[in-house]
Structure formats: C-alpha cells, structure tokens
C-alpha cells in the first residue's frame, strides 16, 4: 500500500458550490482521518447532502478542491470517484427495486478486480463467467450476513421493510470496497432498537473493512454514540468542528439551534 498513513482519507479545501447565484455551500474545510467515523450535522438546508453530492461527483464544485488520500478527485466522474474508493447511500433510498437483495449487492461488487470478466467472456459463456458469478454470489452472501440480510437474499429489494432497505443500501455501498463510506441519514425511519443495532453494525464494518465513514444524521443520540468527530454546518458554512461534546458546547452552535439567550 502506498497510502501514506499520515494523509487524511478525505480533505476538502475551501469547498463551495453555487446554483445560479445561490451559494449552497462555501468555504467548507473538512479533514477526515483514517478509520474515523465523522458526522456532518446541521439543520435542514444546511448543505449536508450537497457536500455528499460534491464528494461523489454529482455536482462539480465551483470553488475549492477535494482530496481522497491526497489525490485530487473533484474533476472526476461519479463512476471514477467510486472506483477510487468513495461509496455512498442516499437520503431517499435508491435501491435497484426490481432486483433481488443479493443482486443489489452483486451490482456493488461489479467493479472489483477479482471479479473481472470481460463482456466477450460473458456473452460467449467462458468458464470464467461461471467462476466469477459463483464467487460474486458467495461474496455477496458474506456481506449480507454482516447486516443480517442473508435470509432475505432472494426477496425483491422493494419488498423489504424500510429499515432493511437502509441496511441493504449500506451493504451495496460496502460491496464496492470503499475507503470512504458516505452515509446519508442511515438511521432515518428506524425505530430505537434498529438504530442501536445500526450503531453497532457501523462500528463493526469500520473495524472489519478498515474504512473511514462520513455520515449525515439528525439524531444526536445516534451521532454522539457513534461519531469520533463532527462538523456542524449552517447555511452552507462550517459552524464548528470537534468532538460531539465540544461542538455542542460551542456558543455559535447553541445560538444556531436554540437561539440567542436573551436573559
């Protein structure tokens, strides 16, 4: 591995984007170290998802740079960014609804080197096609097992209950072998039990796969139980950065959320 350990996994410098004069976010500097679980919090419309979209290449930043392990990624296509090691989930779940659970994960495995199989090899039914297909199936099952979804593997993704759909989306993202996993409100719509379970699962996958996680969440309990550090955004700008308790003690954060104390 030529990844310099000292290099942060993700670094954004002066990141900003504007849509027709409206600054969705600006001057965002975030540095995330390896194996960190990092939270992005802030009120609605603070630009959290916009930052995700910038990192994954859906929007092109108007200002600033994004570095993944020291490599600049802000001019690359979404696919290339994914190949470089960024995977994500979506706020409003985007599964491949007409495919089974296991096939959803197998799509995630699509670009892994060990499952390489050219178009011609597949179309003409070379032995490798079968080998790869079988190996992918096994690998997908393995990933599903982590999320407790193995039993559901032959169900259509759209028939899963909400919580499981969220988990499946994480599983699919994980299948792409990311260095950095972006989770957009992973606990939304889950009940307290499921949420607690999810906290454990996220920690587990961080350790198992040695990955760094950046997540957006509204549930402060969830964030404080999980995140090493957080950044609070408001109106597209960084309000505060630090551990959860540091941030919550920051007067500017308190002001933004609770309002000014007029005694």
């Amino acid at each position: 591995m030529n990844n310099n350990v000292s290099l942060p996994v993700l670094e954004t410098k002066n990141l900003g984007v504007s849509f027709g004069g409206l600054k969705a976010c600006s001057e965002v500097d975030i540095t995330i170290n390896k194996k960190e679980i990092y939270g992005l919090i802030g009120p609605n419309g603070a630009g959290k998802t916009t930052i995700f979209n910038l990192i994954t290449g859906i929007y092109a930043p108007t200002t600033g740079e994004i570095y993944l392990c020291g490599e600049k990624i802000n001019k690359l296509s979404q696919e290339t960014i994914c190949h470089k090691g960024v995977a994500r989930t979506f706020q409003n779940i985007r599964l491949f609804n007409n495919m089974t659970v296991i096939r959803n994960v197998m799509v995630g495995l699509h670009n892994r080197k060990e499952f390489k199989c050219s178009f011609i090899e597949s179309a003409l039914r070379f032995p490798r096609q079968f080998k790869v297909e079988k190996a992918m199936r096994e690998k997908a099952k393995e990933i599903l097992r982590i999320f407790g979804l193995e039993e559901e593997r032959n169900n259509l993704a759209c028939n899963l209950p909400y919580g499981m759909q969220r988990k499946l989306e994480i599983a699919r993202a994980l299948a792409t072998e990311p260095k950095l996993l972006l989770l957009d409100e992973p606990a939304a719509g889950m009940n307290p039990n499921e949420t607690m379970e999810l906290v454990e699962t996220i920690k587990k996958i961080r350790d198992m796969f040695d990955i760094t996680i950046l997540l957006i969440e509204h549930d402060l309990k969830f964030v404080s139980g999980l995140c090493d550090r957080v950044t609070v955004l408001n109106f597209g700008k960084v309000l505060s950065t630090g551990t959860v308790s540091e941030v919550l003690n920051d007067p500017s954060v308190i002001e933004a959320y609770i309002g000014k104390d007029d005694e």
Partner: protein
Amino acid sequence: MIDIINTFINGLSLGGIYAMIALGYTMVYGIAKMLNFAHGDIIMVGGYTLFVAIGLFGNPILAIVVAIILCGVLGVLMEKLAYKPLRGASPLAVLITAIGVSYLLQSLSQIIFGAGTKYVNMPNWGSITLGSLRIQVYTLVTLIASVVIMVALSVFIKYSKTGRAMIAVSEDRAASELMGINVNTIITITFLIGAMLAAVASTFYLLKAPSISPTFGSMPGIKAFTAAVIGGIGSIPGAMIGGILLGVIEVFTNSIPAIAPYTDAIEFTILIIILLVRPTGLLGKKRREKV
C-alpha cells in the same frame, strides 16, 4: 428578394400551424407530464371531420365548428379512457399507450375512409398582390389567426383562474391538489384545449393542401412535436418559437431544389443537434434531479 420575402411569409404561416399543434403537445406535457403521441392523429380526425362535414353541410364555417367540437371530445375521451388509468404508472407505460392510441386512430380511419387520399373541398380565397408581392389569402389568414390564438392562449393562461391552476399543476401536481385544485379537471381541460387547437391547425393545413389520408396527421404531428422539443417542451413561448422556426426552415429548404428532398432529414437533424447541445430545448427549464 421578393422570392425570399414570399418564402418567409409562407414559412411564418406554416410555422403558425406547427406552433398551434406544438402548443397542444407542450401543454399536455407540461401539465399531465406525458407525451401525447396521438396528438398528431387528432389533426387527422379533424381533417376527416371537415371532409365529411363539408360534404354534408356545404358550409365550411359550420364544418370547422363541428371539427373543433369533435376533436375536443376525442381529446377528452382519449385522456379519460387511455391515460387516466395510468396516472402514477411508469412514464414508459404511458408513452407506449399513447403510441397505441395513435396507431388505433390511424387504423380506424383507414378502415372507415380507406387508405387512399381524399380531396377536401376547402374554400379557395385566391391571392392578393401588394406591389410585386403575391400572397395567398389563406397564408395571411393562417398567420393572423395563429397570432391571435397564441395571444389569447397566453392571456388565458396568465390571467384566468383555470390558466393559473394549469401553471400550478405543471409546477407541482401534489401541492396543487393539496391547495384544492382539481387536478383531474385541469388535465381534462388541457387535453380539450390541445385537441381543439389541433382541429384549428388541421383546418389551416387543409386550406394549404386540401387532401387527406389516414397518415395525414403523423408528419405535421411529428414536426410539431419536434418544434415543441426545439422550443423546450413544457414551455408555451417555446412552442411558438420552435413552431415558427421549424416552419421557416422547412419552407426555405423546400425552396432550394438541391436539398428539398432532404427537408425532413434536415429538420430532424436540427432537432437532434439542438437536443444534444441543449437537452431541454431552447426555452425549456433545466430540472435538476434531486439526489
């Protein structure tokens, strides 16, 4: 020079016809969020209605009124029977249904009237001369009528209650429903207006070339759709600009013998180029899909 002016006026009048048809496409697309492929065939039905009605009554004005009413009814029926059940289904399903309806209308008219060309006995108004410029009266009538209709439609949409409700539905159907707008009624009205405009367009088309066949509507339909797309589908001024632009281009390429046979190919190539450069057309709104 006189030739060029003459060609230009002809182009404008053809463009006016295209614009009228394109308005139907664009309004339906904007409000019902579907591409009504059968819109061109409403023109054809309008044409056959004129053919029958002029034969029956001998009075062209009465025939035109009958055609407009009949087309309006057809438009509404089409919407109620074929498209309404599919509201909320995938766009592909709706599109295929629209294609089926178009095909159905064409085949039915072929059974009723035969595949051959029928001559419609439209009034001939002759031409007027302005200096050395000779203009056909129907060209002027078409031009004036299309301008009047477009202005009237714009005013209707901007200032009437129904028109504003149409804008609201095209912006956000769910929200307008919550605000108490009867979305179904609005969509029906849209189809009604579109179909009636198609009947009017059909009349002007027949004034220009009074012969009709079951596929009479497809070419003007596709051309007008092209016009709507060029102008930016969903946009009413876009449909007008696109229609006029396409009409002028068509008449000009037709007037040059070397490229005249390729007129259709040229128009469609322009369509493809415009879509590649500006996927939402000239005046279309760019919609960013929320991620």
